[in-house]
């Protein structure tokens, strides 16, 4: 049977250190990455995302579990025997080699004929629009240019899978946005599976086919960006990605009773305390008394494309509403307002 996944990770665990000092950084992680998928590991620093990438690259060996690439078991294979290439966080370009020598490195290791190497180096540099810099040294290049060379170097051997370890984090915002678009185009052109690691949630949502949100060495939620954003299953996921309002409530037979408010018709499997989440742009500002609950308007900030209202609930907590209707004038500061919560936008979270 033909393998449809580029990467199959099964029950992988990893700890650093020995004995009592050992720190487990990955707990029984399993991931499947489909062919030509742009798959992103997202999480704060120390969540294990980079360790998982390094296990796939072969720089670390898993304590248990297995990793297969294109059906081939590589769990214990050294990095130079894996059909995988990496774009490193700080590029790790060879300082003593020119741009073209850097790109040719892997092809020379494969002992390809000279004219073929020259052709493939030219192609790779053309793909990232760096042909004119072929004879330069990495130290003569800007961060964005070094980034491009690192990409060309990793793509030159035509890997089955490209690993990208926070490749854009060293670039300034404008350049980062440009490179994001280029990365996405490049992936479509080259038809290569991408495993991307980042702590930037916006970047993850913009680029990925699927995102896995990691925390404490576990994958909390895995799915398309829209699902991760719209339907977070964990409090951590909801909080980590974008702004979110969290409401504590009590699940009853008829729905969830929000502290200091009404009972909302949300289906919950079992009664008890729950947390409801709603994005600021899904909640609406209405006249006092007509919404689910009332609150005091603390502050309104005009953002150009929207207005962000900060409210204070009766319980003392904050509540954010992002209103993208520019015509509607904001109520006065300190006035009583109502909050409307569309039922389909409410998410019930696990801790």
């Amino acid at each position: 049977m033909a393998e449809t996944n580029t990467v199959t990770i099964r029950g992988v665990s990893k700890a650093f250190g020995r004995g009592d000092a050992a720190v487990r950084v990955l707990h029984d992680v399993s991931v499947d990455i489909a062919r030509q998928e742009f798959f992103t590991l997202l999480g704060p620093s120390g969540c294990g995302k980079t360790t998982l990438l390094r296990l796939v690259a072969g720089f670390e060996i898993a304590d248990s579990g297995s990793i297969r690439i294109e059906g081939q078991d590589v769990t214990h294979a050294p990095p130079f025997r894996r059909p995988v290439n990496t774009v490193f966080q700080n590029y790790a370009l060879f300082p003593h080699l020119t741009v073209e020598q850097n790109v040719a490195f892997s092809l020379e290791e494969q002992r390809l004929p000279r004219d073929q190497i020259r052709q493939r180096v030219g192609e790779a540099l053309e793909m990232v629009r760096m042909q004119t810099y072929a004879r330069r040294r990495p130290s003569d290049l800007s961060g964005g240019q070094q980034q491009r060379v690192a990409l060309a170097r990793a793509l030159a051997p035509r890997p089955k899978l490209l690993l990208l370890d926070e490749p854009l984090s060293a670039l300034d915002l404008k350049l980062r946005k440009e490179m994001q678009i280029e990365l996405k185009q490049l992936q479509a052109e080259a038809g290569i599976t991408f495993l991307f690691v980042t702590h930037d949630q916006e970047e993850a949502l913009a680029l990925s086919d699927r995102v896995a949100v990691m925390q404490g060495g576990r994958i909390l939620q895995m799915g398309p960006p829209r699902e991760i954003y719209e339907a977070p299953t964990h409090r951590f996921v909801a909080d980590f990605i974008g702004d979110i309002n969290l409401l504590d409530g009590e699940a009853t037979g008829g729905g969830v009773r929000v502290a200091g408010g009404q009972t909302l018709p949300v289906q919950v499997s079992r009664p008890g305390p729950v947390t409801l989440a709603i994005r600021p742009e899904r909640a609406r500002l209405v006249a006092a008394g007509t919404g689910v609950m009332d609150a005091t308007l603390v502050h309104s900030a005009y953002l150009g494309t929207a207005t962000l209202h900060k409210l204070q609930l009766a319980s003392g907590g904050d509540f954010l509403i992002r209103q993208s209707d520019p015509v509607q004038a904001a109520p006065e500061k300190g006035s009583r307002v109502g909050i409307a919560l569309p039922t389909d936008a409410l998410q019930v979270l696990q801790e």
Partner: protein
Amino acid sequence: MTQSDTLRRIVLMLPALVAILLLVGAPLGLMGWVSLLEKGTTAGVDWGSAPSIGNYQRLVWEEDFDGTLILNTNYLVIFLRSVLQAAVTTLLCLMLGLPVALWMASLSPTGRAVMLLLVTIPFWTNLLVRNYAWLIILREGGWLGMAVDALWPFGPVQLLYNDVAVAIGLTYSFLPFMVLPVYSVFEKFDWRLVEAAHDLGATRARALRRVILPVAMPGILAGSLLVFIPCLGAFVTPALLGGGKTLMLGNVIQMQFGPSRNWPFGAAISVVLLAVMLLAMTALALWRNRRSA
């Protein structure tokens, strides 16, 4: 730039200039001048003699009884042997020092500090004492000699008073000069470059050859110079461990200033040695510039 600025600069540079002129320029100039004079009857130099290049001539040609010049290869042979001895020592230091430096760089900060201390500890002891220590180790009946004899089936081995003993002694003395500069490169070395090399298909040996060694080259060159140059002029180790049988340039120079009391000739040999080193260093610098261009 105003005039007062220029003046300020000159005044500020003055101490450094004076120090360089007094401590480097003057002795070198004096040595050059002495090399052109003749040796005195009682003292080392006849300060009143007319300057000539006779001392330099003596290095290669000998005056026959009838005044014709004939080729004298004695000093050339010593010179070549010194270069060879220094080259062998440099190579040995490189072969021993490179793995040590590489290993040191892989240690924890505490481990590195301890190793740095261990590498520099021999400096605290006098060079002469350290050479005598080798004399005891290498002599007949010394523990190394007995160990080698026990393993070597073809009769007793003479370890002392030959070129091998000199090479061992010199390598021991100058090893830290190789380890320290190479270590300083490896300490700053970005080990992700090795990961990148593995990632691009290079085995450990290939990564060493294609990435680690080229990036460490400045340290390797610096260490090689620091070993090669003092080796060329070494005289204590060849005198003690070589038993005076195999002279090196340093011994010849020392003899001219010591027993032979021929300072001008000693100065001439020193000037030639200096010139050769300068040439070698210039060539090396040019080669490096061309490579990094």
